[in-house]
């Protein structure tokens, strides 16, 4: 009998020890939060300013300054790389556990988050400060407006398609910087013959070709109206001849050898490296690449680099003085915020997206959707060039900002297929099917 009790006791102890271990593992961080008795308001912010580029550094500095100026507010910030942030936001959205503030994208993402009842509008704050509201460039708030309510403001401007070209190579081989499609084809041919990569492309993460090249190229041919109609599936379809012409145009460019071998197996970073090494005459990338270029390109390439937009295409319906782009990311404000927490969050919001935040962004060689003058003495000459180019170039929609995520995936994979010999008609009908399904839902 005594033995039995001892045995039972042992069994209990083993189990208790195991459970204790288990609980210790799970509950580690709960104790630290409760011990603090001061009236500290704590807010969380998730962002993608993790890199060493000027923009990320500037944004992190704003958070740092905010901390020192507001000792009563505890800011818990978490930085994630862009792709990771998007996925993570989706995941917490599914669990309804949004952070207080988070970097979010206009159009599709904003709409879905509003539909999921995760955001609160910021009209009140904007209307209370009309100078702030009215200084945004025209249509800048559209991507963040759902059913007449404004949910955020853009903190930058992201044109997604510029040609950065190495002028030394153009001069050396006596090539004209392309202003028409025919000139583009000549340039490609000449550079290819000389053993220089005409346009370096890194399309392993498959949004690159779509966002940086195809969105603008297609707009040149189809015009913006057609695209917006096709998105709504209202009077236009992705199987229309103009869209197939756009696909074919890109394929022809690829077949002429515009892109280096193996462009589907290197990513955007490696693509920029090849350009930095002076092995490529051109690289087509968004405005965001400029900060990277200025920080990382060796002087002999950087000093020779200039910026232009994709050339006009004869017979196309689009305005040639445009480039694809989106107003940049904004901060989402969680629906759950109230009282002093909301006050603290909106204060940080204004620091980052208000006039001073916009100025800091502009000073970090990043375009903004806000009316500000650039201090041309201080800015890098290449950024001044970009800034001046953007004074007369209009923005047209990027494919991945307007189409649903399922269709975007089909477009991205379709372009990879197209550039490795797929048939334009087949790809067009896949895209059409995907978008028809998405709109039907």
């Amino acid at each position, binding site marked *: 009998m005594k033995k039995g009790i001892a045995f039972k006791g042992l069994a209990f102890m083993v189990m208790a020890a195991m459970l204790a271990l288990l609980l210790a593992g799970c509950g580690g961080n709960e104790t630290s939060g409760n011990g603090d008795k001061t009236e500290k308001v704590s807010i969380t912010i998730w962002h993608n300013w993790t890199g060493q580029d000027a923009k990320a550094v500037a944004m992190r500095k704003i958070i740092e300054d905010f901390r020192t100026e507001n000792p009563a507010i505890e800011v818990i910030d978490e930085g994630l790389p862009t792709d990771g942030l998007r*996925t993570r936001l989706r995941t917490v959205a*599914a669990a309804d556990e949004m952070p207080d503030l988070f970097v979010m994208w206009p159009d599709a993402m904003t709409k879905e*988050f509003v539909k999921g009842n995760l955001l609160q509008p910021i009209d009140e704050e904007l209307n209370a400060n009309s100078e702030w509201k009215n200084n945004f460039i025209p249509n800048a708030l559209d991507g963040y407006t759902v059913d007449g309510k404004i949910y955020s403001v853009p903190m930058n401007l992201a044109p997604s398609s510029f040609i950065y070209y190495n002028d030394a190579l153009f001069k050396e081989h006596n090539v004209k910087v392309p202003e028409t499609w025919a000139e583009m084809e000549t340039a490609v041919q000449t550079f290819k013959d000389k053993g220089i990569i005409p346009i370096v492309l890194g399309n392993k993460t498959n949004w690159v070709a779509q966002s940086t090249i195809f969105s603008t190229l297609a707009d040149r041919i189809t015009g913006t109206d057609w695209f917006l109609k096709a998105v709504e599936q209202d009077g236009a379809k992705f199987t229309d001849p103009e869209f197939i012409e756009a696909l074919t145009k890109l394929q022809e460019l690829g077949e002429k050898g515009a892109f280096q071998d193996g462009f589907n197996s290197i990513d955007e970073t490696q693509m920029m490296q090849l350009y930095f090494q002076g092995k490529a005459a051109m690289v087509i990338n968004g405005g965001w690449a400029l900060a990277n270029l200025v920080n990382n390109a060796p002087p002999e390439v950087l000093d020779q680099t200039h910026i232009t937009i994709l050339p006009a295409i004869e017979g196309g319906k689009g305005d040639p003085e445009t480039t694809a782009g989106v107003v940049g990311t904004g901060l989402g404000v969680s629906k759950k915020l109230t009282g002093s927490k909301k006050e603290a969050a909106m204060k940080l919001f204004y620091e980052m997206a208000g006039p001073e935040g916009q100025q800091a962004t502009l000073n970090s060689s990043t375009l903004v959707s806000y009316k500000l003058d650039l201090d041309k003495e201080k800015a890098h000459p290449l950024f001044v060039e970009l800034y001046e180019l953007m004074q007369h170039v209009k923005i047209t929609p990027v494919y991945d900002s307007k189409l649903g995520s399922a269709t975007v995936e089909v477009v991205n994979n379709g372009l*990879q297929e197209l550039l*490795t*010999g797929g048939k334009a008609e087949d790809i067009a009908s896949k895209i059409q099917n995907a978008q028809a399904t998405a709109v039907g839902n």
Partner: protein
Amino acid sequence: MNALRSRRFILTGLAPAVLLYTLFVFVPVIWSAYYGFFNWSGIGEAKYIGLDNYAEILRDPVFWRALKNNVIFVLASVFGQVPLALALAVLLHKSNWLQRFLRSAVFLPMVLSTVVIGMIWQYFYHPQIGILNFLLDSLGLSSWKLDWLSDRDIAIYSLLPPLIWSYVGLYLIIFMSALQNIPGEIHDAAKIDGVSGARKLATITLPIIKNTVQVAVILCISGSLKSFDLVYIMTKGGPAHATELLATYMYNSTFTTYRYGFGSAISTTIMLISLLLIGTSQWLANRNKSKQT
């Protein structure tokens, strides 16, 4: 009485593990199977659509390509890793310095993270600065140069060498320990009977470690059905779905196009396929056993 008590003790001891396993394996599997019946983007209302997700999977050519690629991976593992590891184990089971060095060299990839392996091979295949193309150039075989990971027709085959290379070490260790477990008397008896070399290998060594080989094959099948990381790092399933595996197909559907319901249905399908394959191999093994007795 005593037996009952010790059984109770065993049950109490097992309970935490079973509890954890149920909580983190069975519950999510059932949960995920349940979501498979919904059209759900992760945000907002989930709409019940019955078996539509499954019907879509079966109609989706990408699914069939992923399945085909997975089968290629399983075959490459079973017929690449296992025989190679067996041959190496037989050759390297003595212990002079060269064999010790070679063993460590073969085992080395096992201690590397898949991310590192992926990066190494990506640079090996790199179209501009890759060693492989450079090697072909210097051998005068420039015409053999290919876009190893970029060409839709060959990308999946380019992934096989890293796959085989990275797991051979594991099976090498398993086979070596099996070989060392063969009692010395058997070797002595073989020597007395004058059996050596290839004949000894075929008639004595291999039959003795047959069970280990079977286990290795099962490990190989289930391991390569789960493959994800290597492909995700090296090609992300691209170009244009050419290297999509079931796991990357599921991941991309769930986290790139945000179709959580559809992704859950794919997970459930993968589980069913795995159960089917493992069930079949178990059945085959058992049938062989009952034949022998």
